[in-house]
């Protein structure tokens, strides 16, 4: 094989519950290959490595052609859901066991308040694995009680004796003064170097002890597992001959990190999967000159939505993930339990409900014929004719049975409500669409954004089926449907920059702040970022930094993050910071108070190294007629009557081909449903674009 003609392959692998999705980009030709293999539950890396090896064999290529490998994993999420993390210990300030055991104290919102039989979210560390050490730092960071090293040693001995594999250390005010925590970490490395130690002043150095502690505990709980997983994957990739050091894991913030960085901060990977889809949307938007998008990833059990504004996805600095509190920067992804497999039922009051339960992939919707008897959103779509038994799902793997769908809707919904099967199916879709609209509002209009300025980026297996209708009803600007809706998340893995977030917490009055003081804090964050990126092999020419501050009005308990220009910070920057905070507050809350005192809570810095951009398009035929793409007609039930609509094969649509709705557009991994009056245009990179006029 001629060296000059060797392929340079970028590999993105997104592991899901049922399938592992691969997107492989040949840098030299710009061509993309997409395929799925069944996931391996016992060790996700098996499917990844064998899938990759088989693919390479199939194209007669050696593994050293892989120049870049990026992975979205659910190992962390699964460990939390299954309770299979490490045996974890916790070291705290003497007298403060209540911080972790009480947690938030409140029970959440909604029906749980009435539920006399509720339980708190499971704690990852039990009290018998919680050890107190004598020490105390004050609110100003001074040492009130020196660290009693004997008590620390006793704590460590206790945890070692009881077989802790991993330990979280979270002391009061350690974000102000980390010395005691760091010293305890040192003692661990002297006495028990095999224990994985997570320290709160490293993992989440922010004010509010419970949230910092909970984050550190989650990190400790996942770290051993994730490091083992990543190590094994690393070794196996080498075994099959992948030599490139460019190996990454995507994290909740939408950035990627080297294998070793990801393994050390496992808490940052728990929203790995959904983040990648948002990254894809961001890049598509940038290429197409579209600044404002709502991403809409509708799968089998849930739908993830997120907002991209002026080309940047909205982030949040913490939140609940699987009911655990974590203080790590993440893309602000809102999830609603509404997907193709979501079950419709009639409650005790005779009211049609859709969700939150899902038939999942096993047994799946009734129409899958795998023993499911409860009607789902997919069954309703089949009855209405927008899905068809003759156009199977998931690349031909699934045949849909209309009779089973009809029967389940008749029995569970139509009969109890005394309406026809068709009306029941229409109702199921209408209700699930409303739920998804409410989810979209949560990330957009609830935060003061006007949906008329936003496109819907519809992907996931079911996104294109519901997206056009939803965008129309919400008065959005348009819809974008990417070439491979089903593997859009995996595509994002090839596009994500390396991103490390750093934070420094210090509650002070903004007006007392001098540029020099800010500069020294940001400089110290920047040198941490530089060090980490250099250790990952990046030269500083590839890197840049994003600065931001969390600000609030005096005494408020809620902060807004306001961006800053590059260093150095000047006094003009400080003045404009104040104004921009007022404006951000007005945007977000509807009011502002320019005369009130403003406080700084956190300093934030993201250290970013860019990956070389990849062309993300598919070849579209330059000539041909839309008519030639029409492969049949379908009867669909819309507006309480049957309508005969054309069915197109997406791969045959030519550049600039215009499709008028109502119409169905089929492809292996998804079906797009255009409603009456909508027009979709195929662009030259293979994206279907709908512009809406209102």
């Amino acid at each position: 094989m001629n060296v000059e003609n060797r392929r340079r392959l970028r590999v993105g692998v997104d592991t899901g519950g049922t399938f592992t999705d691969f997107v492989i980009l040949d840098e030299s030709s710009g061509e993309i290959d997409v395929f799925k293999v069944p996931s391996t539950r016992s060790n996700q890396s098996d499917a990844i490595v064998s899938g990759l090896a088989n693919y390479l064999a199939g194209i007669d290529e050696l593994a050293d052609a892989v120049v870049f490998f990026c992975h979205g994993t659910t190992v962390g999420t699964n460990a939390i859901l299954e309770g299979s993390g490490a045996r974890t210990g916790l070291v705290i300030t003497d007298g403060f066991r209540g911080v972790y055991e009480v947690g938030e104290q409140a029970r959440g919102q909604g029906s749980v308040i009435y539920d006399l039989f509720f339980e708190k979210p499971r704690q990852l560390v039990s009290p018998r694995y919680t050890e107190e050490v004598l020490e105390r730092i004050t609110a100003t960071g001074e040492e009130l009680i020196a660290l009693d090293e004997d008590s620390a040693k006793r704590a460590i001995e206790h945890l070692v004796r009881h077989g802790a594999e991993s330990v979280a250390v979270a002391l009061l005010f350690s974000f102000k003064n980390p010395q005691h925590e760091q010293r305890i970490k040192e003692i661990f490395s002297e006495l028990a170097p095999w224990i994985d130690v997570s320290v709160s002043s490293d993992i989440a150095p922010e004010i509010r002890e419970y949230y910092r502690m909970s984050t550190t505990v989650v990190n400790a709980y996942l770290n051993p597992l994730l490091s083992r997983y990543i190590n094994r994957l690393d070794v196996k990739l080498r075994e099959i001959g992948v030599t490139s050091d460019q190996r990454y894991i995507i994290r909740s913030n939408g950035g990627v990190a080297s294998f070793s960085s990801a393994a050390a901060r496992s808490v940052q990977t728990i929203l790995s999967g959904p983040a990648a889809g948002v990254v894809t949307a961001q890049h598509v938007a940038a290429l197409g000159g579209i600044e404002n998008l709502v991403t809409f990833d509708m799968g089998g059990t849930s739908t993830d939505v997120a907002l991209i504004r002026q080309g940047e996805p909205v982030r949040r600095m913490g939140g609940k993930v699987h009911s655990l509190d974590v203080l790590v920067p993440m893309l602000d992804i809102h999830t609603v339990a509404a997907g193709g497999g979501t079950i419709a039922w009639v409650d005790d009051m005779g009211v049609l409900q859709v969700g939150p339960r899902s038939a999942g992939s096993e047994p799946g919707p009734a129409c899958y014929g795998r023993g499911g008897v409860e009607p789902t959103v997919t069954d309703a779509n089949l009855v209405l004719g927008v899905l068809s038994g003759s156009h199977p799902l998931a690349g031909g793997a699934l045949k849909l049975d209309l009779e089973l769908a009809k029967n389940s809707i008749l029995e569970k919904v139509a009969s109890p409500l005394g309406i026809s099967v068709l009306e029941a199916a229409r109702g199921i879709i209408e209700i699930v669409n409303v739920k998804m609209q409410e989810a979209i509002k949560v990330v957009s209009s609830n935060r003061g954004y006007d949906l008329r300025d936003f496109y819907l980026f519809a992907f996931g297996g079911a996104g294109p089926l519901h997206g056009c209708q939803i965008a129309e009803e919400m008065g959005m600007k348009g819809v974008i449907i990417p070439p491979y809706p089903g593997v859009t998340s995996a595509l994002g893995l090839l596009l994500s920059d390396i991103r490390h977030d750093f934070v420094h917490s210090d509650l002070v009055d903004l007006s007392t702040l001098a540029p020099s003081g800010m500069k020294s804090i940001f400089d110290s964050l920047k040198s941490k970022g530089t060090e980490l990126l250099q250790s990952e092999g990046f030269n500083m020419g590839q890197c840049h930094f994003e600065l931001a501050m969390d600000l609030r009005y005096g005494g408020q308990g809620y902060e807004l993050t306001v961006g800053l220009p590059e260093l150095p910070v000047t006094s003009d920057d400080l003045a404009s910071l104040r104004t921009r905070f007022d404006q951000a507050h007005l945007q977000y809350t509807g009011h502002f108070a320019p005369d009130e005192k403003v406080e700084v809570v956190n300093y934030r810095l993201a250290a970013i190294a860019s990956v070389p951009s990849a062309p993300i398009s598919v070849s579209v035929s330059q000539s041909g007629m839309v008519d030639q793409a029409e492969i049949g007609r379908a009867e669909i039930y819309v507006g309480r009557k049957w309508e005969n609509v054309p069915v197109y094969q997406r791969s045959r649509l030519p550049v600039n081909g215009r499709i008028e709705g109502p119409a169905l557009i089929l492809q292996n991994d998804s079906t797009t449903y255009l409603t009456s009056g909508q027009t979709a245009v195929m662009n030259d990179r293979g994206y279907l674009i709908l512009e809406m006029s209102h």
Partner: protein
Amino acid sequence: MAVDPITSQVIQNRLSGIVQEMQNNIFRTGYSTIVRESQDASCMILDSEGEVVGEHVILPLHIAALPEVVKAIKKVYSGRIFPGDAFITNHPYVSGVTHSIDMAVVIPVFIGDALIAYCASIAHKSDLGGMVPGTGSGNARELFQEGIQYPPVKFMDQGKVVEEVEAILRANSRTPDVIMGDIRGQVGTGRLGEERLKEVVSRYGLEVVLETFSDLQLKVERRVRSVIASWNDGTFEAETWVDNDGIQLDVPIKYHVRIEKSGERILFDFSESAPQTLGPLNVRPPLVRGCCYYAMVAMIDPELPNNGGLARVIETKFRHGSVLDPIYPAPTNTYMASATAVTEAVLQAMNGLVPEKKIAGMGGVGGMVIGGKRKDGSSYVQYELIGAAYGARNGKDGVSGVSVLLDNAKTAPIEVLETEFPVRLRRFELITDSGGAGQYRGGLAVRREYEILTSKAQLTLRGGKHTEPAFGVDGGMPGRLGACIINPDSEGSRDLPSRFGGEELKEGDVLRIEKAGGGGLGPLSERAWEKLLGDVLDGYVSFQSAQSDYGADPEKLKSAIAAWNGEE
């Protein structure tokens, strides 16, 4: 005209979306620690009659208060309600507000000339005047000592702020900027709801929306009546006690309920409850009805919408002049202890109707306020709602360190408290052996210990269960009592009652608050060995208690502990 079931459900989803959006908005835009961090605020949509049609539960009693508020506004302002108005009131008697430190803000929603609904919220304020910082004094003997009373008044008149009202509000608060910030946030939230509701009307049509309002209530009413009909007929009684009213410390207060259930009707008769109290323990009937709604939803289905349809079914009877139907101007600011006790009595009586949902008594609820001046002379109000514990439930231990029943406050972060206020925490922990023993153990209570770092501060406590413990059920033991001790373990140590106001604290004083534990359920001898051992290893039950209360064999226990410690 009947709305089809699908459209009706779609509109219900829209209403619930609007209320959640309002709720997010009020937490997001609140200024005070109470609204933002403790989330002591609720939003609702009510129909033109003042019945709830859209709610998202934050604090269940707020749901009972707002219909009374709207009815009071309608009465006072009949014919003078206009688009752009915003009403405020905090009056427990005239408007049925929970207590006068809570402020209700109500926005009428008009379509054309027709007033079709109200978007309302109710939120705790940091200070509205009164005897002590934070307004609610445990020593209050009449309403007038519990802050300034605002009957329904217009804060905004057709889109313009009524400057006189704002001036009065500001002049009567120790923290004028904070309360005005919160009130503005509430008005903004109401306007948001108004705008969203109008969008729904323009989309689905006014008639359809109004029809859905009544449809939603009718469905709940029918469901509740049919569930009631499925229960056995009969009379069921229960009583619970609160330590005292904060004034007469040796007089426990009785809460009594007799439930008469017949067919699809249910009557809650509270007439045998204690006379009204001198101190501020009194609670007004609308809120007692709210306690009944709470218990009914808990017993029927936690997902049941708590709307006007449920309210229609509940029949209640009170004795005027009792603690549950006090005569104006009896004080009410520490009503939460009473409301919790009433709810527990109702739940206990309902054990006879729904025996599979038994629950033992709860640890005490209530707030704590420390107010005074920092060393730099600035004044501050530190308000906290410290969680308690759930009683044991059928088949489950109680939950430890949690807000109970009607209360749902978050804990205040220590690092925020110490940064903002002259105070240092010394301890924050669950109290060993505080959960009532039983086959199912009561939840453990919380201990918090503070050191005062300023020369002058006042303490107000609205606690409970310092003398009347959380009851056990079916052979389970009561929970540990609560306590409030100044300078514990020292010569000058003093025990304070569960409710008082204005206790002077000086620099260096140590304040220890211990909440009460939950009651146990079922015979102690039935406690599973693994659970008992687990409790001992986790420090929830002491070795001593495992032995003397539960009757564990000390040798077996010792060897099990040794085995855990690897010392076999």
